[in-house]
């Protein structure tokens, strides 16, 4: 097994069609070590989210290779990619994206159920307790505060025990206090589970908590350095 959780080799990616086609990622090569926490920073439109999606197998590069947890993503079809994500990658969104018709418990159990785990519900319950929401199991997303919803989303992302956690501006929709506690939770869970964390953020304090910061500009890596405490 390689010691790299994620490796991108000369990745190019364009989006849109015809005249509207935009070259977003340009010859990106980088790697993320196992257990490492990496912050992707840069101005709007620099390609941070697209790079994150490429790492999570949500966008396919036009050229270049993406290896995640030792698997070449270009070799997987849509369904295999979905299953791969379900087991190896946990995703935390800025807008939480909980399924509104499911309770907190059901939301967290969802990836486990999709992976065919028999003990999905007990595990989901344990995860929710771990993020401090043991008393909110049967609440629907609309009955939870923003911070609580993001905790449920983090529990859901971490429930299948993924090797890699990706987060897209996880505190972007939260107030400062709540955001801080969410970041604490995210890093604590990463540490406890030994997972790799890649997150996109505009928040310098959050970026500083990472082991390393990659700065993007116009689709290229402008800087890649250990985060400054």
């Amino acid at each position: 097994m390689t010691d790299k959780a994620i490796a991108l080799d000369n990745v190019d990616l364009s989006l849109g069609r015809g005249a509207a086609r935009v070259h977003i990622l340009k010859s990106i090569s980088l790697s993320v070590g196992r257990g490492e926490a990496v912050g992707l920073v840069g101005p709007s439109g620099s390609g941070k989210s697209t790079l994150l999606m490429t790492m999570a197998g949500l966008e396919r590069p036009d050229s270049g290779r993406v290896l995640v947890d030792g698997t070449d993503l270009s070799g997987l079809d849509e369904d295999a990619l979905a299953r791969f994500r379900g087991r190896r990658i946990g995703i935390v969104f800025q807008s939480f994206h909980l399924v509104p018709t499911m309770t907190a418990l059901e939301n967290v159990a969802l990836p486990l159920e999709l992976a065919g785990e028999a003990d999905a519900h007990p595990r989901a319950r344990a995860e929710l307790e771990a993020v401090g929401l043991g008393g909110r199991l049967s609440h629907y997303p609309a009955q939870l505060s923003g911070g609580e919803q993001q905790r449920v989303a983090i529990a859901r992302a971490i429930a299948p025990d993924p090797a890699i956690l990706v987060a897209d501006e996880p505190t972007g929709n939260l107030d400062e206090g709540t955001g801080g506690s969410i970041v604490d939770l995210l890093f604590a869970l990463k540490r406890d589970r030994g997972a790799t964390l890649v997150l996109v953020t505009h928040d310098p304090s959050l970026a500083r908590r990472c082991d390393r910061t990659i700065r993007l500009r116009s689709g290229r890596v402008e800087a890649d350095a250990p985060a400054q405490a």
Partner: protein
Amino acid sequence: MHGTLPGEPARRPARGGPSLVLRLALRELRAGLRGFGIFLTCIALGVMAIAGVASISRSLTEGLAREGRKILGGDAAFSLIHREASPRERAVLGARGNVSAIATMRGMAIAGEKGSGLVEIKAVDASYPTVGDLVTEPDLPREELFVERDGAFGAAVDPVLLARLDLKIGDRVTVGGAAFELRAAIRSEPDKIAAGIGFGPRLLMSLEGLRATGLVQPGSLVRWTYRLDLPSNAASDADLARVEAAIARDAPEAGWEVRSRVNADPRFARNIERFAQFLTLVGLTALLVGGVGVANAVRGFMDGKRDTIATLKSLGAPGSQVVAIYLVQVMLIAGLGIAIGLALGAALPFVLVAALGGALPVPIVATLAPGELGLAAVYGALTALAFALAPLGRAHDVPVSGLFRDRVDPERRWPRKRYVAALAVAVTALVLISVLTAFDRRVALTFIGAAAGAFVLLRGVALGLMALARRLPRPRRAAPRLALANIHRPGALTPSLVLSLGLGITLLVALSLIDANMRRQLTQTLPEKAPSFFFLDIPSSQASAFDAHLAAQAPGAAIQRVPMMRGRLVAIKGVPVGQIKAADDIAWVLDGDRGITYAQRLPEGSKIVAGDWWAPEHRGGNLVSFDERIGRGLGLSLGDEITVNVLGRNITARIANFRRVEWRNIGINFVMVFSPNTFAGAPHTHLATATLPDGADAAREAAILRETAKVFPSVTSVRVKDALEAVNGVVSQLVLAIRGASTIALAASVLVLAGALAAGHRARLYDAVVLKTLGATRGRLLTAYALEYGALGLATAAFGLVAGSLAGWLIVSTLMQMDFTLALSGAFLAAALAVVVTISLGLLGTWRILSQKPAPYLRNL
């Protein structure tokens, strides 16, 4: 590439795959049925139409089967035309059970100065009715009802005759040479339906009374029916079949038409089935129109679920699993709609019986028809599937990346091949089921072709309109510019509006044209050469006197008179007709007795298309001239032999020629015209027509009727206009049933339209709010929307007028085989109405949007 992920021990079996899909689908459904109102109603309406038609038809068939003995007046009925059964034939019947006899014929009831009227005479013996009850008012014992008293026989009469001739109970009428005292009004006649459509009211008398009229002459058109009642210990269906076979063996030459209680009225049963099939197609139209609503609802639903779909995929659900989750939801909702439709449809006959009960003119036993209901459910499920698959299939490729960045309106692409294939399977299954279960596959195929054509054409019209709007120069004024942009912009209302409105207008126009043509054909514009009167049962001995009478009464009238008898085709090319399977549109020729004639010369209005007419003095073998279309349909060629039974004799004749007959003249014409030698010496009567010169008014026609009844009391006069009115009454009821079923299709179309407009309103809320913020007044916005809806409505109405006229023409001229007239006033009205409804519905919803204050919306935009 598929398969196991590297480094993964082994993929776990898809534990509880289907159950997980169901579980997740049920969880998702917790959100309720919001947005599915139109979906549910469309499916429920369509299924209700089909299930209702099937249930009523089945209840009627069941009624016929259960009431078979009552309708028939016995276990079996043996009918002869022109003649009574011979003593030997009576003995053959009598050996098997109790026999009762009735005689039916048309006649004239003459009420002195009050005039005369055509009546359907039924003469019965003392045992009538052997099954069921005759209810009269007053309720007199049978003996008292009919017995001769003070020089007059008694009779019971349909109250219609009393009203028509301004008579009351106790008055007298003359029929032929006998007087009848009208002693009671008929309230209920158990075997009425067996007589079919009557052209006049019933006059019920005794056989003695009928004989006293002198109307029963050799060759007169009397139908003698002998009802056989089997002994109760030998009355099983098997016994009945044995008895029928024995009677056929013992009286092979009788030539009677046999009906048994298990098949009391095959023609009526077949008509029910045929009409039910037709109405099922109308119901299917409702379902197909509703299908557009299903597609719109599912598309709207899936658009609203894009984030959830993307989330599911981000959590490891493969695209096909996501599609399955939503497919299950959609089909569960469809199942609910189907259940509602089935319940309402199945309840229809019960409601009908409960509400109308004995007032219904046909026997109906409210019945649950599981097979037919199952079929209606399958239609509903397949329609829902066919229309939902495309929007569902697109969910497979909803990108998870949509969760990370603002969504750009997705391009509408075809779903993956597997979903297109599933769609093809659903559509094929729909087509196969409709065709295979159809009574007339040609009609079903025409319907399917027309429906498919309408869908494709309407799609084309929508795309054409959008392309046109895109290419038109931009108007300088804001309102028309906005209207034009709304027609062609991405996500425009145009395709769904054009489809639902177009289908509705096409249907409306086609129906109004069919309706107008049927009515015109039957009542208003008779063919120019149509006769004014038919005269039946003119005794041969009085034929010349009758000609002279008519010539004096109606100077200038064209008079045609031919010998007439009735006979049944019993064999074609030596094959008994019972073994011949004829096409549906000519099967009637083999069914029961037909009028036949003989002639020295080719009848007027006919043309020889093959073979030669016989010499006027032909003496050789029996020859027959056959109607060309029917002859070809029966596979006949020149020289083939046919056998008819006339007056209890089987007569075989060789086909000498084929004629083309101008049926639409309604003049005298016959499928079979024999050479005169065939019936030399056979007793018969004559049939005459009189065509009055132009401008004959009702008073003049009434005078001719009165005089003819006075001088020739035994001759039955039928005023063609009266007969057509009687037929028109029946047609009106059929049209009512068609309208009923079509109303459901139209309701579905309006629903779909309203749904499409409502979806459009949500989409244009943004425009309205932004434009208002920039200073657009409500009036200006409303003008823009009115222009848009008006343009779309008018363009679609133009298409609907053309397509509906085409459909109407196709149905009227091909399926109904009638002349088609483009009666556009009704069609225009229908189209105009549809446009007004569209604009009103559209503006109604828009006005609500425009009345909202922008601020709350802007916060959420």
